[in-house]
């Protein structure tokens, strides 16, 4: 594999995530695109996330001396080139073949973190190899002790830097689009699915050459020959167990490296995370996919950052789609952000080149904002927030 060469590829047809999304929608079969896009229930949470981040306003400071901007952020002992990373997305290989491989390689090349999902289509060992040990690993809390131990052992010996434990999937999200589509992994070869696949020839040929997407990391734990419809239930029960503070303790004990708790909104939960000795939290509502009445993380982020910012690293995801959104999140007190869907849109639109393109676009957008604000370092962004403390 070629080394992490500086790759400044940008396809000028797609300067924004919206452009990528429009193209990706045409090139990804509907059942997969719906899984990527969808929220739960009436999908009100999706919009609330967008509204939340877009309501943030920033104010420039134009006349002070300005030495140019530096987007790098130090986090858990590593200096990343940009203040954003690639959030974990399950079944990525369903949306674009070899998505985890492409994105992990792009993240490595551009020096940002990539978080591999447990329910990923690529094996964790393979991704560790591609990311040369720079990736993070997203973890659920398997109910089966043996599976939990074995999985943690694999994550640690594969050389992942950071363990991210997702705690906001206490139950399988009720997602009407997936229910209607009869989504399963691997997808069932029904006439409707095949017609959707054939209507996306790029996707179909590449997927066929790569083979049907399967949950490679979890494959060794799955009973062989289990019908696809029972698999979801098995996953739900065995791999994505409920997790509470007592469930987190053994994970904290077993994992030596930095531990991040993902999916918190409530201050009390952040306090608990600090108690068990977590190193970071990701303020998130799972991209609006779990609780349709859930609040946007933007407002609690500001409170939590003020209160606990000196005790634990505060990171954030959900609803971010642009450099502006990232800057807004940082201005609200996040030290680092994650985006999920935009990178998959990038793959859908541009295939193998989509990962690097999307990272470059977001980075460029961020630079423009920093320059316009007159902000030299990303940790100074809160100074430029138009505060609504007034009321």
């Amino acid at each position, binding site marked *: 594999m070629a080394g992490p060469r500086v790759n400044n590829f940008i396809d000028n047809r797609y300067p924004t995530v919206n452009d990528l999304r429009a193209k990706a929608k045409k090139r990804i079969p509907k059942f997969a695109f719906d899984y990527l896009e969808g929220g739960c229930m009436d999908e009100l949470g999706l919009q609330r996330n967008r509204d939340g981040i877009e309501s943030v306003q920033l104010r420039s400071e134009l006349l002070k001396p300005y030495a140019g901007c530096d987007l790098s952020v130090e986090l858990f002992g590593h200096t990343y080139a940009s203040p954003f990373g690639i959030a974990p997305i399950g079944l990525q290989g369903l949306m674009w073949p070899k998505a985890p491989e492409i994105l992990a390689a792009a993240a490595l090349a551009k020096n940002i973190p990539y978080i591999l999902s447990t329910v990923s289509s690529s094996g964790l060992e393979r991704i560790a190899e591609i990311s040369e040990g720079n990736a993070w690993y997203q973890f659920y809390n398997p109910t089966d002790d043996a599976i939990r131990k074995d999985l943690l052992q694999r994550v640690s010996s594969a050389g992942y830097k950071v363990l991210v434990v997702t705690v906001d999937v206490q139950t399988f999200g009720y997602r009407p689009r997936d229910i209607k589509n009869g989504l399963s992994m691997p997808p069932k*070869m029904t006439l409707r699915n*095949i017609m959707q696949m054939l209507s996306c020839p790029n996707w179909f040929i590449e997927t066929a050459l790569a083979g049907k997407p399967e949950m490679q990391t979890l494959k060794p734990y799955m009973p062989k020959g289990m019908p696809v419809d*029972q698999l979801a239930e098995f996953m739900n029960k065995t791999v994505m167990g409920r997790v509470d503070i007592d469930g987190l303790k053994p994970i904290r004990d077993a994992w030596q490296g930095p531990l991040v708790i993902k999916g918190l909104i409530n201050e009390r939960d952040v306090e608990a995370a600090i108690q068990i000795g977590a190193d970071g939290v990701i303020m998130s509502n799972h991209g609006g996919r779990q609780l349709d009445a859930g609040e946007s993380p933007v407002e609690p982020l500001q409170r939590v950052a003020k209160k606990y910012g000196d005790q634990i690293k505060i990171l954030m995801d959900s609803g971010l789609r642009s450099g502006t959104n990232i800057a807004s999140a940082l201005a609200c007190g996040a030290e680092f952000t994650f985006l999920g869907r935009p990178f998959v849109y990038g793959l859908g639109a541009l295939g193998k080149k989509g990962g690097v393109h999307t990272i470059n676009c977001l980075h460029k957008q961020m630079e423009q904002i920093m320059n316009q604000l007159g902000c030299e370092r990303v940790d100074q962004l809160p100074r430029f927030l138009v505060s609504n403390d007034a009321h």
Partner: protein
Amino acid sequence: MLHSIDYFVIAFYVIAIMAVGLFVASKQKKGASLFLGDKSVGFASIGMSIWGTNIGPSFLVASFGAAYGSGMLVANFEWMAWIFLLLLAMVFSPYYLGLNVPTIPQIIKRRFGDTMYRLLTIYSLCTIVVVWLGGGLYVGGLLFTQFMGWDLTLSILFLLVIATSFTVVGGLAAVIVTDAFQTILMIVGMAALTLIGLYELGGVGVLIEKTPASYWTLIDPDSPDVPWYSFLLGFPVMAVWFWCTDQTIVQRVFAAKDLPTAQKGVFLAAALKILPPFIFILPGIIFFCLNPSVANSDQAFIAMVSEYMPIGFRGLMIAVLIAALISTLDSGLNSFSTIFTLDFYQPVIHKGKEVSNKEIRFVGQMVTLAASVLAFFWAVAMGSVSANLFELLQSLIAFLAPPLSTLFLVGLFWRRVTAIGATYGFALSCVLCVTVGFFSVNEKTFGLFEAWPHFLTTTFILFVISVALTVVLSLLTKPSPDEQWLPTFKQMATQNGSNSKPIWIAWGVLALVMVSLYGGFQYLASGDGESSAAPISAQATETTKPQVSVYRGESPNFDGWVNPEEYRDATKLDGIDAWVPQFSPVHDKADLSGHVYIKHDTEYLYFAFDITDDVLYGIDTERWLPDENPRAHELTREGFPWFGDGVEVLINAENKAGEQDGELNKGNGHSWQMVVSTHKSRLGGLQKGGLLEGEERSLKSAWDTYQAWILSGAMQAKVRIKPDLSGYTLEWRIKPNPTLEIAPGVFWSAEMPVTEMGLNLAVGDLDKPKQENWGGFHHENWWSGERDKRTWLKHWGTMRLYGDYRSEYNP
């Protein structure tokens, strides 16, 4: 197997293709030629039509099956064809178009006069009926029958009506345009099948990993099926005949408006020839990787379509098969009509007098109809005579080639050939070829030699004799006034005056592509390709120990016969021939193959084996003894219970297996290994197959326990030899108490939650004494484990025993 959506797809296809054909027919000018399509056919249509005409349903199914059984080797027939299409385009086509004739016999008439002309007309009509009409229609009808469940006669009639409809009305123009559509349909349909197969399999990496390296080889000097020299010598004789001189293929060249169009068309056909190995042959290999247990490789295509194609696409695949047939059949009908009308009706009935275009057209249409009726009866007749006759006629095709190949290669390019030499040479050669072909196909040697060589070798020898006959007869005779020389190649080339440089460059590029394809596949076949395959995650390869889930089912009729119906609720383990070989691997499914059903009815756990084994020890053969043990037959601890054909079941009920090497079963309810032989048993003695005490015999306690199980009926087995001696079936049932002791004093029962146990299964096969292996064993295939370590507890697979019915089956 078909859903109403499939029928809709098929109906849509049939209506569409007839509509296209009839539309083209209706656009024709009045009195247009039925045979040359007004010489207005474009090169794309010519190329696709040659390609589509060539690929018939029997080819499609047979090459898929051949790939399933032995890999890419069959692709040679496709990837060598371009050489002969090059010959057609650059050497023969200038003649054909320069002479401006509509049929092959008329070219020969120009050169050698009327007698030869009449002879060739008859020859051509016969070959069209045998090669293009009857055989193809019969096989197509047969396939259709298998898919649709229709009666054979009805299937044939249905297919024939579609093909005849637009061929009668529209002639060659309609045939060529519809062929182009069918070609696109075949390519798209088969590409979809290939991609879906690849998708199911897990992509290119898994394909390369799973396919035996030998499957990729295109050049196999040691092939037992086709010796390399036979291919090298005989194939060109057939290929020149088929691609360069057969009316049905060549008529597309005649229909071209000028030479460059014809050459471009033939080039397109040659370039499209890159595809068949990828979309007709590769899916056969993919399916082999997906499911290597289809016993009859001719069934492989149908099996893949029904196992992996979703509703709707099955209909599409049937449409592809119909397309393959119709595009071949309509071409055959049209060329039969062409030759009959222009070479028989006009010169013989009308004695060569001018006949109006209108009349020629009408006669041509009537002859097309008549040919269709002839094809119908011919195909139905094939269905009613023995299958052997059909195969015989098909094999004879190889022997039709030498006379015509000789006539063209020698007659056209050597001016010294006389009409008498050509005519008598051709006639004698025909008689010789048909005779030799007949005896060769029937394998009659009259004690003159040991066996007939490969048919391609015979074809080449016949070609040499034909050439010799023609040359000698010509040298002995003088030219007659009837004959005239054809222009030389050079004259032809200058007369056409076209710039042939671009087309030669195109052929050069194609040659390079072909050479690199051969190089690429040889690389894969060398096994080096495997290291470059995408690495499969370590975890995935570590879990290769097989697992099986076993559920409750209905009690089967415990009579030794294994009926799929009584085991439809059981779990099936397939592909015994592909299990881990302790001795020689199985190459031939007739030699050893089969499947095992497993289920329980709460009272007993059942194992039902259905084994194909062509040679049954002690039944088809003497009961010889192995060198290793002169007391092997004894039913004592000194005997070999497993010596002979039979099966073994090994269960580790307590499911405890340490990591240490060499740990074996305990010889009691916790873990055991028992044998069912086809020719001896504890209860039936040396005469009757059944249960025997298995391993470890050396342990007295094990031997006693096993014997007690057999005598008490705690374990029972019944064996049946198949009436045609092609193998055997057996049913074997065990009582959980005392044989499934999962913990001391605790026996498995259906009330328990899912219980995992160690399981291994073996099928042994002994064929003849003094085989290379230990004990003279031919095969011993194991469900789990490695060679020499298959009895170690830690290498056994896992059986998950569910107390209840499988969820989708509720009685």
